[in-house]
Every structure is written in C-alpha cells, then in structure tokens.
C-alpha cells in the first residue's frame, strides 16, 4: 500500500469521527499554539530590551561618587578630564543634577536640571530636534543657556519657535538654545524629563561647588568596556589617594551589562515558558494515544476483517500510525496558525509588532509530528499484532 493510500484511508476515517478527531487534536493545538505564542512574546521582550539598551547610549559606563569629602562628593571635574585622557574612551560627560522649577510665564514644571558638557549628547545618545546643543563656549563662559528635554518642552507648551526665547530656572532667566528629540520612556524613568545647562553654570548658580555627582563615559569599542572600567578604577584610586586595602569611593555602573543580564533572563524565561507549553503538547500526545487505544479496541473487528482480506501486520501498523500522525500534524498546523494570530495580537498590544520566527514554527511542527509517532506507535502495534481469527470473533 502506498503512503498516499494510507493518508487517504486515515483522512476518510477522521472524517467519519469528526468531533472525536477535533477534540483529540485540541490538546496538540493548545500545546503548539502556546509554544509559538510564548516564544514570540519572549523574543519580543528581548528585542525591546535590546532596543532600549541602544537608546541609553552606546557602550556607556557611569561613574558615581559613593564617598564624601566633607559636604562635597569625591568626584571632580578634573577626574572627568583625566578619564577623557584614557585611550579607549570616546567621550566623557560629567553631570551635576538638581531639581528646580522651570517656568514660562505662568506655566511651570519641576524637573531635573543637569549640568553637563557638550559631549553629553554623544554619551547619553540624545539628538537635538531644534536649535543646538550645549557648546564648549557656553561651558567656558558659564552662560545661562538651556537645552530642553522633549517632555519638559511639552509640559511648558513650547514648540520649535521657542528656540531663542527665555525660560526661568529656579527664578533665573535662561535662553533656550535647543530642544531634544524624544527618546521614549524606558519604564522607571523618563529620559526626556530633564533640562541641560552648562556644568559651570549649574555649579555657579545652583550647587555652588566643583563637585560632580556622575561622570558618563562612552567607550569607543564595546570590547574595551571591561578594560576601560579597570583603567578608570585604577586612575581614580590613584587620584583619590586610596590605599591598597581601602575600598573605592566611587562605583562604576555598566548599564549595558545590566540590560544584557535582563535580556538573558528574559531569554531564560522564554525557554521556561516554552517548556511549560511543551508539557501541554505532551499531554495532547497522551490524548492521542488514549484515543488511538480506544479506537483499536473499537475497531478490533475491522482489523480482523482487513487482515482476513489480505492486510499484513505492517499495513495495519501504518494505517493506525498514519492516523495518529494525521491527528498530530493537523493539530500542529492549526496550533501554529492560532499561535501566530495570538502572537501578532500580543505584539500589537505590547508594541513590538509581529515577530515571525520560522525556527519556532518548524520546531513546533516537527515536535507535534514526533508526538504523533511516539504516542501512535504503541496503539498501532497493538492493532497490528491482533490475531485475525480472534479479532473477527471480538464483540
């Protein structure tokens, strides 16, 4: 008997027991659909984390002061300048931050005022939407100029025409020289809710010392991040006169590494979810086996008749195996379709769009076929082994 004949036989049989076939397939359908949907959710989360990772700044290291020297923090502008001398460092932006009220006329908003340098845009990956960014000249002159974050500009009701106008920060007038492109929220903190002024300006008018809270460092090459981190540690320990046994008075934070970790956690979670979903596929397979065993029982006479008119054991074996395979494969295909629809819906709601992953589809389909073989073989063997005369007498 050819494979085609067997498939035809299996299909005609499934047609006569449609409801049963559909219910049997349901287990596999749910299993495959959840594997496909969950894997795509996992991939979506991971890709979202990756895109945020890039929006934070390329190869970003953040040096934070942890020790105190009287009232001032231990990091200084000179530290920033020294770090800039390290070969692997591409850009350095010292940061001093304070909270202040920013106002235009009667409209006010409270936001972070960050004093920094011209390289801040490069270090933190900001683009200017209108006007210009802070310039070296404005830094040297401690000019009262400000670059507005997108959220702040929005809150104050300012648009492109605001460049060149004046806003007040903590009561002092500042000239708006630029407005930043929005980066979009990254959950816990809105990167667009800040205004940037020259670091000398903030030190002169707001914090009143040369202290630096944070130094943002952009490393030229991703592979140099670890070496740069060590070089900065060494440099700062020497500059701060820290003896060999004493601990650092600063910490270096590698945000990319943190998010890498987050991405790998989400990858592990994806695997875990897919694993749980495969359990339902397994249960679906057991459902197929159960139905096939019942079917062998019910059709004992039919098997006897087929053997009596010339079927060999292997004909019966293939017939039942193909039936189980048809159930599992059809279930797999329907499951794939439902899984794809579900993942495109979830993708649309969560905002990462539709992620089509052919590997998952292929794996889920192959897995459902394997389920069919594994759980179909035993009932099929039971059927094939039946003694014809005993099978014919079976009531």
């Amino acid at each position, binding site marked *: *008997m050819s494979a085609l004949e067997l498939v035809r036989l299996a299909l005609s049989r499934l047609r006569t027991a449609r409801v049963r076939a559909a219910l049997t397939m349901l287990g596999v359908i749910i299993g495959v659909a959840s594997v496909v949907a969950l894997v795509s959710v996992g991939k979506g989360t991971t890709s979202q984390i990756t895109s945020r990772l890039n929006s934070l700044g390329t190869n970003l290291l953040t040096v934070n002061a942890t020790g105190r020297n009287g009232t001032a923090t231990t990091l200084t502008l000179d530290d920033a300048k020294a770090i800039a001398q390290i070969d692997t460092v591409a850009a350095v932006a010292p940061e001093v931050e304070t909270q202040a009220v920013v106002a235009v006329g009667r409209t006010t908003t409270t936001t972070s005022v960050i004093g920094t340098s011209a390289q801040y845009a490069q270090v933190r990956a900001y683009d200017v939407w209108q006007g210009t960014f802070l310039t070296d000249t404005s830094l040297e002159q401690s000019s009262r100029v400000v670059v507005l974050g997108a959220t702040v500009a929005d809150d104050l009701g300012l648009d492109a025409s605001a460049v060149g106008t004046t806003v007040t920060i903590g009561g002092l007038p500042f000239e708006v020289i630029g407005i930043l492109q929005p980066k979009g929220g990254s959950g816990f903190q809105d990167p667009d809710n800040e205004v940037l002024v020259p670091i000398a300006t903030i030190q002169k008018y707001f914090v009143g010392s040369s202290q630096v809270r944070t130094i943002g460092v952009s490393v030229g090459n991703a592979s140099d991040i670890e070496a740069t981190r060590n070089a900065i540690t060494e440099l700062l320990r020497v500059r701060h006169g820290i003896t060999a046994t004493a601990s650092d008075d600063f910490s270096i934070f590698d945000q990319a590494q943190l998010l890498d970790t987050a991405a790998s956690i989400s990858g592990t979670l994806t695997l875990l979810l897919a694993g749980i979903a495969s359990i339902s596929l397994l249960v679906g397979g057991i459902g197929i086996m159960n139905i096939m065993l019942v079917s062998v029982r019910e059709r004992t006479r039919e098997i006897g008749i*087929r053997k009596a*008119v*010339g*079927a*060999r054991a292997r004909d019966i074996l293939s017939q039942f195996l193909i039936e189980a395979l048809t159930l599992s494969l059809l279930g797999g295909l329907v499951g794939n379709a439902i899984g794809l629809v579900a993942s495109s819906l979830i993708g649309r709601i969560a905002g990462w769009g539709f992620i089509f992953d052919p590997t998952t589809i292929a794996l889920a389909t192959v897995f459902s076929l394997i389920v069919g073989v594994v759980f179909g073989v035993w009932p099929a063997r039971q059927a094939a082994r039946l003694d*014809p005369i005993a099978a014919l007498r079976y009531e």
Partner: protein
Amino acid sequence: MSLLELTAVTRTYDMGHVQVHALRGVSISINAGEFVAIVGPSGSGKSTMMGILGCLDRPTSGSYALDGTVVTALGDDSLARIRSRTIGFVFQSYNLIPRTSALDNVATPLLYQGVGRRERHARAVAALERLGLGDRLGHEPTELSGGEQQRVAIARAIVTDPAVVLADEPTGNLATHQGLEVLDLFKGLNATGRTIVLITHDPRVAAFAEREVRLLDGQVDTELAA
C-alpha cells in the same frame, strides 16, 4: 491433484483451565475445481476448519498444504499474501467494515494487493453489479438489508478473482429465493474453475455441492459423494 489438503489436523483452544478440542485429527483433501459442502451440528468444528483452510488460523498439530505448499510453516506475512491472492472468504456474520461504503468495502482486498485506485473502483463496481447491487455503491452497511450485506460480503470475496472461495453459511441470513441466487452464483463460479467450500447445516444447500464432508465432534464422520 489436491488443492487443499489437511493431514491429521488438530486445533485446541486454551480457555484458561479448560482445553477445548475443536478439531481432533481431521484429514481431508479437496481438489481444484471441486464444490464441497461442509456440514455438521454446531460445535462440530466447521468454522474452526474453515479458519484453518482460509489461513486465518493455524492448526495446533498436523499439517495443511495449499496447492502443494505447506502453509503451516509459513510466517504471518506469507499467510497474509495467500489470503490476499488466493482466497476469498465469505463470513457468516458478513463482517463488513462499518461506516464504509459498499464500494470501499468491496475494494478493500484490492487495496492490499496494491491495485491502483481507478482499477480498484472499476473492479469493485463490476463485482457489486454482478450481485445486483449496482444501485447500492455508496451505501454503508447500516443502510443495507441483511441480504444486501451478505451479497456485498460475497462481492468482496470474489472481487480478487480468487482460486478458492470459502463461505461460512453464506445463505444463512437470506430469504429462500435470495439464497438460491447466491448458490447459483457459486455454481457459476465453480463452473469457471473456482474451488468452492461452503459451510452449511441446511441439507438443501449441501445438495448443491458435488461432495459433502460431515464433521462431528471435531472429526470427519462420513464422506459421501453427492
């Protein structure tokens, strides 16, 4: 020459503690082209003997040679091949495949011979028409009367054009006139050289045969020439 030859065949069923001796040493020889009736009361071993003749069952001891080949020594696949190529079996209880059309039922033996779909279809239609069931091709067993089911079963037995037709009470469920038609059909098959063996307990049916073999308690009682 003898086509079917049983030599000292016994068949014992092991029913737990009890052993049932269905056949106790049967030796018969049936020649090619013969029309033989096997008669005897119920429990005399007729159906058991038919199962062995049809290669559905194996003797406990003794040997069975079909066309010179000792089939008792053959494996399951070889027996399946003989059932497929040489023997047509008509069961007392029809044994049609449920939820399957008359046409597909009759075509099934051809399926296992590896005959292509179109030819299968044509030959099954021809066999059914020969039994006057040309208008019942798409009917499933439950949609057919007892007599129609019996005729479908006969069509299935003859569709492969087998050398031997074994029939277990083929007229048992038929009205007298239908029974006669079936017997005429067997006569006709016999006339074209087929060997016919049929089981019956009806002397009028047995009278159609050239030879009558009487079984009693698992042994051949007397052998009469018709």
